[in-house]
C-alpha cells in the first residue's frame, strides 16, 4: 500500500505541475535565479581561494646579502638554513645572476640601464630564497634569521635585508578580503534562499487556491492530510529539479563567457574549466538545494492552507 500511495502522490503531483503550467513556469524561473546565485557564490569562492593559494605559493623569504659578502660564507649560511626543520628548500642567486635578471627585467628602461652603466660595478648583492614547508612557518624562519648574527670573516653582518614582512601584509589583507567576501556571499545567499522560499510558497498557495475545489472534495471523502499535501510537495520538488536543470544549463554559457573576464583578474583560474572539472559536485548541490527549497515551501503552503480550514 505504501508504494501505491507513493505512486499516486507522484502521479497527481506531476498532474498539478503540468496543469498549472504557467504558474509552474514562474516558480521555476524564480527558483532558477536563486540556484544560479548559489552556484555563482561557489565559483566566486573557488576563484578567490585559488588566487590566495597562488599568492601564498609565491611567498618566500628573500635574504639579500651585502655586496662584499663572500660566496663561501653565504653557501655556509645556506646549509645552516637548509637544515632547519621548517625549510623545504633554499635557492641561491649569485650577484651576477641578480644583475642579469635585473637587466633583463628592465631591458626597456633606458634610464635605469644608463644609471647602472654609470655606476660601473654591480650594485646588487647575492640572495637566498627560502621556501618553507607551510606558509605559517615563515614567521619562525624569519625570526631565526633576524636573531642569528651571520657575520663575515671580518666580523661585520653580511645580511643586507630580509624581505618577508612586506609580503605578509599583502597576504593578510587578501585573506581578510576573502573572509569578508565569503561572509557577504553567505548573507546574500541566505536572503535569496528565503526570498525564493517565500515566492515559491506563494506560488504553491496559488496552485492550492486553484485546486481548492478538489481539496474540499478530498477532505469530504476522508482523505488524510498527507494524501492532500503529498502531491503539492511533489510539485514543489519538480519545480526545484526543473530550476536546478535550468541553472545547470545556463552555467555553461555563463562560465564560458566569464572565463575570459576572470582570467584577467584572477591568476591562473579558468572558471569554465573549474565548472567542467567539478560538474557532478556542483550539479548535485544545485539539484539538492532546488529539491529542498521546493519541498519546504510547498509543504509550508499546504500545511498552512489545511490548518486554516477545518
Amino acid at each position, binding site marked *: 500500500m505504501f508504494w501505491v500511495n507513493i505512486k499516486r502522490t507522484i502521479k497527481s503531483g506531476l498532474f498539478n505541475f503540468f*496543469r498549472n503550467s504557467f504558474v509552474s513556469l514562474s516558480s521555476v524561473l524564480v527558483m532558477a535565479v536563486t540556484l544560479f546565485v548559489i552556484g555563482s557564490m561557489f565559483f566566486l569562492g573557488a576563484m578567490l581561494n585559488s588566487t590566495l593559494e597562488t599568492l601564498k605559493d609565491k611567498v618566500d623569504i628573500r635574504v639579500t646579502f651585502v655586496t662584499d659578502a663572500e660566496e663561501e660564507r653565504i653557501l655556509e649560511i645556506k646549509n645552516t638554513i637548509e637544515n632547519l626543520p621548517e625549510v623545504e628548500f633554499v635557492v641561491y642567486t649569485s650577484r651576477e645572476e641578480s644583475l642579469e635578471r635585473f637587466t633583463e627585467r628592465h631591458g626597456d628602461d633606458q634610464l635605469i640601464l644608463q644609471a647602472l652603466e654609470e655606476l660601473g660595478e654591480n650594485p646588487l648583492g647575492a640572495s637566498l630564497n627560502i621556501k618553507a614547508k607551510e606558509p605559517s612557518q615563515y614567521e619562525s624562519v624569519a625570526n631565526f634569521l633576524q636573531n642569528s648574527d651571520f657575520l663575515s670573516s671580518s666580523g661585520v653582518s653580511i645580511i643586507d635585508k630580509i624581505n618577508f614582512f612586506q609580503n605578509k601584509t599583502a597576504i593578510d589583507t587578501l585573506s581578510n578580503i576573502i573572509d569578508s567576501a565569503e561572509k557577504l556571499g553567505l548573507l546574500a545567499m541566505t536572503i535569496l534562499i528565503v526570498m525564493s522560499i517565500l515566492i515559491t510558497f506563494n506560488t504553491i498557495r496559488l496552485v492550492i487556491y486553484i485546486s481548492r475545489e478538489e481539496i474540499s472534495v*478530498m477532505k469530504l*471523502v*476522508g482523505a488524510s492530510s498527507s494524501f492532500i499535501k503529498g502531491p503539492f510537495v511533489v510539485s514543489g520538488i519538480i519545480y526545484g529539479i526543473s530550476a536546478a536543470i535550468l541553472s545547470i544549463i545556463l552555467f555553461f554559457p555563463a562560465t564560458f563567457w566569464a572565463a575570459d573576464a576572470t582570467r584577467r583578474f584572477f591568476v591562473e583560474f579558468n572558471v569554465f574549466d573549474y565548472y567542467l572539472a567539478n560538474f557532478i559536485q556542483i550539479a548535485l548541490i544545485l539539484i539538492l538545494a532546488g529539491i529542498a527549497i521546493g519541498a519546504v515551501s510547498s509543504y509550508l503552503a499546504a500545511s498552512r492552507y489545511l490548518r486554516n480550514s*477545518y
Partner: protein
Amino acid sequence: MIHFDKVSKIYSDSSIALEEVNLSIEPNEFVSIVGHSGAGKTTLLKMLLAEDRPTKGRVFLESVDIHSLRKNEVALYRRRIGVVFQDFRLLPHKTVFENVSFAMEAAGRTDEEISSDVPYVLELVDLGKKLWSFPHELSGGEKQRVAIARAIVNQPDIVIADEPTGNLDPINTFEIVQILKKINDLGTMVILTTHNKGVIDSLGKRVISMEQGKIIRDSKEGRYVL
C-alpha cells in the same frame, strides 16, 4: 446512530444558525429535512460532517463526540459518510471513472478494489456506458448520479444528500430519489434536505421541519408542511 445534543451555532447575536437542536437518527433510517433557505439545514449537515464546530452542544456518532476527534480521526470518520451536493462538485478534468476512483484512492483502497468496485457502482447508477466521459459531456441528472456513485463507493454508513435535486428536472429528480431509496433499502442511513414538496410527499418517510435554526416539527411518514 446519530445524536445531536442541544446543539447551537451562533455567529453573532443577530445571526443564530442553530438553536438548542436535539435530534436522533437511527441506522437504516431515511430522514428528510425541510425548511426555508436560512432555516439551518445546511449548518446542521456541516456539524454532522465535522466541517464546522458547534458553539454549544455535542454531536455523537454512536458514542463518539465527533468534534472531539483529532484531524486524522476526522478523516477516518468522514470515510463513513458519503455526501451528495446540489452543485455535484465533480472534478471537471477527471473522467467519470476517475471522479469515483478518486474517493477510493483518498480512502486508501487498493488498485484491485478500485478496478472492480468503480464499474460496479457506476453500473448501479446506470452509467456503465459513460465511464470515460468528462463531466461537461454529461446531463445534470447524469452528473448527480456520478456524485451518488462517488458517495456510496466506499460503502458508507450514512449518505447525506444536500438538495440533490435542486438543479434537476422532474424526471431526473424522480430517478435520483429512487436511487437514494434503493441505497436506504440496502441498509444505509440517508439524510436528505430538499425544497421539493413532491419528493417529500412521495417518499412517505420521516420528515423534520426547521425554521430559524430550530426543529419545529418531526413526524414519521410526514409530508412537506411549513
